[in-house]
């Protein structure tokens, strides 16, 4: 039930954000649209643990700053390699284990790998993530498993 309420609140927020006009007629139109949308979502059975994962939103706040820092670091590295031909690239493919228990956790881990330039997730097979890396250094960065441990930690046992 709390998921439905939070979905309705999020949708109402989006409506208010996009409309920018706050008179009774338009807001009541918004309320009607939100109610209909939530009803359809309920009928489709998509408001569940996976479709609307409110349980990890708070923990994401502690994860994002770390992720941003990683993204900036690896961006600078890739940029240097693009600009100066003397720095070698050594593209490679390898698999690393993903220790997350839920699909949401694994998705976040795979997307984090992709977001960090220099590494791209090609495929997720069971609990193995197949990664393409631009350089040996960026490959080693993933292989240390620090990101994996971070994602698992904030995923928690929910």
């Amino acid at each position: 039930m709390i998921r439905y309420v939070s979905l309705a609140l999020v949708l109402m927020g989006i409506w208010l954000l996009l409309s920018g006009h706050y008179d009774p007629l338009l807001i009541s139109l918004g309320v009607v649209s939100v109610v209909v949308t939530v009803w359809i979502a309920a009928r489709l059975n998509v408001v569940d643990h996976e479709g609307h994962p409110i349980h990890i939103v708070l923990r994401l706040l502690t994860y994002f700053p770390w992720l941003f820092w990683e993204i900036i670091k690896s961006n600078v590295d890739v940029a240097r390699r693009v600009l100066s031909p003397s720095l070698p690239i050594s593209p490679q493919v390898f698999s690393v284990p993903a220790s997350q228990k839920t699909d949401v956790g694994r998705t976040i881990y795979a997307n984090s790998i992709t977001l960090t330039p220099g590494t791209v997730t090609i495929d997720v097979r069971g609990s193995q993530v197949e990664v393409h890396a631009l350089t040996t250094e960026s490959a080693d960065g993933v292989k240390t498993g620090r990101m994996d441990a971070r994602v698992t930690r904030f995923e928690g046992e929910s």
Partner: protein
Amino acid sequence: MNLDSVIDILLLAFMAVIAIAIVRIRDLFGIAMLFSIFSLLSAGVFTVMDAADVAFTEAAVGAGISTILMLATLTRTARKEKPSNSKNPAVALIVVFVTGALLVFGTSDLPRFGDPQAPVHQHVAPRYIEESPKEIGIPNMVTSVLASYRGYDTLGETTVIFTAGIAVMALLGMRRSRRREDDEEID
């Protein structure tokens, strides 16, 4: 030359380049993606020309929904275009050029872009601009014209689109269930 016109020219040049790329490549998946970017670029051009509502529709329908429909179609057909077997491409070229020339010739009669003296701006437009917020109570003028002043028109259009949507769904759904039966026979 200000940046606005630079952006204008570049966007149109990009559109031409992408159109040529669409003609040149044979992979239909790639073409679907290029079409989506083509629509997005036209949305950009509309944005530069201050036609926010048209750009909005173009971005949502042209770049979004039609790409999805094309992909849905592609899952039912082949991924590669057949090599063209037309004997005489010159005829097609001539037809295209004549049509294009006629269209360009036709524009010479049109009022200049954004001309306040143009006939469209003389008839009912002043009333829409001045009265519609009071008469209808919706801040967006385009919405009040479409949904109120020309409500029956819009109702008809919506019916057409709804019918088309149902027809597309029916076609796609039918093929899928037949294919599933095929699969079971093979397995």
